[in-house]
């Protein structure tokens, strides 16, 4: 009685990675000795055998036409036996064994609009979500903000001129696909108005008990509205997380006027020196201003430049701020501290200062 055709393939999983590895990697798998970063965007890995693998890293906009993928495939054929890889931050990496071909590859990539950089103490590609290109709950566009910000920060991608690496991430709502919450700078789009309820559709598209229980603050209760079985929201209790919208499409939080962008700083995932940290709130809200979000770009540029001018070598954004203290961060970055900066959710109490260890006043 199976409705599935018997020759239909399922559960084959991804192809085995080994078939895609270049010969030099197959030969030296697990036998690399050290690596160097001779210039921005170029790495050389040296194996115990003495073999050298050159990596050329170029930025891509994550959103890629198949025509661009074909272009990269052609370049890989021309320069490195058809072998390339992508990084966890949407860069493409060409894997060369012939050092003399590096300059020509970099030139061709630059001519096609894909700059080489993003290694060492630089700002590499921004990891980001879908935004208005594809997401139902986006409080801002993702690709557009990222493009505008990186146009401005571009010099820090092609140079290694910062105290340490700066990792920037963008999420278009609190769901944070890709978990941006441990980035040196996290750009997070936020809703600021309670859900608008489609009472007519509610009973048809949503399960009311599930919707009610989805609210982490208990702000949703069942209600009959104009004869429709529906819910109501206690607006003062709503913190705009949109968890209700995820389980119930009849409760959108998207709002053209009040959605916008918040900026968080000082997170990291690496264990180097200090433990991994969450990003903390720097700027609670900047209105959406497409197509180039100049206020967001300006705010991020300011934070990067203040960090670059004040941090010590190897100090990540969060390590620098921990050293100088948050009061001084707000002072040197010239950012206003407001009541929104003080946590009032699950782990709030842990963030109150319960000592007198803070920089002197004045």
């Amino acid at each position, binding site marked *: 009685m199976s409705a*599935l055709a018997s020759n239909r393939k*399922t559960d084959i*999983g991804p192809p085995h990675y080994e078939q895609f590895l270049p010969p030099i990697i197959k030969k030296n798998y697990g036998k690399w000795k050290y690596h160097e970063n001779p210039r921005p965007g170029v790495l050389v890995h040296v194996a115990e055998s003495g073999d050298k693998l050159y990596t050329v890293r170029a930025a*891509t906009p994550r*959103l890629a036409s198949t025509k661009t993928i074909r272009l990269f495939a052609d370049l890989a054929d021309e320069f490195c036996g058809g072998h*390339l890889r992508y990084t966890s931050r949407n860069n493409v990496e060409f894997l060369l064994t012939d050092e003399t071909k590096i300059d020509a590859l970099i030139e061709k990539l630059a001519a096609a609009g894909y700059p080489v950089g993003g290694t060492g103490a630089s700002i590499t590609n921004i990891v980001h979500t*879908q935004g208005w290109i594809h997401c139902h709950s986006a409080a801002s566009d993702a690709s557009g903000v990222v493009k505008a910000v990186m*146009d401005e920060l571009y010099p820090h991608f092609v140079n290694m001129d910062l105290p340490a690496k700066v990792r920037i991430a963008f999420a278009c709502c609190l769901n944070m696909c890709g978990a941006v919450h*441990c980035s040196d700078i996290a750009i997070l789009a936020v809703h600021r108005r309670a859900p608008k309820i489609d009472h007519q559709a509610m009973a048809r598209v949503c399960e009311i008990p599930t919707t009610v229980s989805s609210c982490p603050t208990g702000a949703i209760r069942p209600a009959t509205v104009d004869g429709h079985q529906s819910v109501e929201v206690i607006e003062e209790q709503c913190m705009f997380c949109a968890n209700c919208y995820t389980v119930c499409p009849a409760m959108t939080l998207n709002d053209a006027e009040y959605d916008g962008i918040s900026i968080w700083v000082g997170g990291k995932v690496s264990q180097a020196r200090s433990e991994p940290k969450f990003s903390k709130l720097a700027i609670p809200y900047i209105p959406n201003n497409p197509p180039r979000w100049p206020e967001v770009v300006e705010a991020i540029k300011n934070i990067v430049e203040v960090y670059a001018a004040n941090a010590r070598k190897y100090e990540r954004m969060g390590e620098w701020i921990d050293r100088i203290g948050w009061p001084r961060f707000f002072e040197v970055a010239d950012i206003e501290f407001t009541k929104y900066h003080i946590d009032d959710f699950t782990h709030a109490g842990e963030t109150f200062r319960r000592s007198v260890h803070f920089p002197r006043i004045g």
Partner: protein
Amino acid sequence: MTTNKRETPLIDQLEKGPWPSFVKELKKSADNPMTNDLLGVLERSYNDRIGHWKHGGLVGVMGYGGGVIGRYCDLPEEFPNVAHFHTMRINHPAGWFYTSDVLRKICDIWEKHGSGITNMHGSTGDIIFLGCVTDELEPTFSDLTEAGFDLGGSGSDMRTPSCCCGMARCEWACYDTMGFTYDITQHWQDELHRPAFPYKYKFKASGCPNDCVASIARADMSIIGTWRDDIQQDDAAVAEYVTSGAVDIVEDVVGRCPTQCMSWDGEKLTINNRDCVRCMHCINVMPKALAPGKDRGATILLGAKAPIIGGALLSSVLIPFYEMEPPYEDLKELVEEIWDFWGEHGKNRERVGEFIQRIGLGNFLEQIGLEPTPEMVVHPRTNPYIFFELDEDEDEEEED
């Protein structure tokens, strides 16, 4: 079907500037009617300052509950070619290595069936095909499996595991991240395609504590490479870093060690490995001179997640050191214990990290059959409200 080219004055402004432009990418594929309409919807959003997509629904390939994300435009009359615009997640090869041939094969499939727009890659690590109509899902899937690819995870299932490039191109890889990732992905195909959990469950495998795939922040189970012997040290190479002036060893290395476990006497670097917490800093600064030890494995951590619902969490230590030898039997058994217990008692949309917060790490360990160790906590409890178990004392008395 003939479609007029959409006018897009607002987003056209994002073609300018030195950074690669996603608008140019869209226009490269704008001969495809879907992508042409996508440009139109996006322009509309830039004008309206709001998104135009709806979610949910029953779309997927037959037999699977994951891998396809249903997406519909809320202006279908205006933009008919993107009325359905579903996402397909295609499980990427571990480490994101490709040959030009296989990339062209993927492009062929996507140009034939969909918009020609991809993400390389999505946040989950998958190859993303952006924009498939419902009727094309099954044919696309069929061509994909013919080419040796399968869908990734979505919804309440095991998500596509991902990893750093590990031993393929990194001297710091303390275990074979790609081998491990491929192994578990194949081992749990059913859990990946047929959602049976309270919520998502992500694995991310990083070869060393630099954690290039951010596993500690994003994975329900984070597997982070580490070692338990001494840092490998080449004194001649250390001296070279110092004499060449490349490194200020006192300031940049000794001075930045978080446990102050090293010293420099002007000639030799001495590391007290007993006090080292394997943070990687000194190794990162002097990769030619220092390397992780030889007795390598991984620390297994559990429970990271983004804020929804109860607040963001980083993973916490579950197994301080695991040898990471294939076929990883003990680890697989432990994972199944975790899935059983969380599956039985977890609430809908409750990630395993939140579940542990709710029931207590001590209770959780007891249920999955792990002994508590001091590595699991930053410090022991400070509050004296201890849930002493009544029968424990009685048992001990009987044994006496």
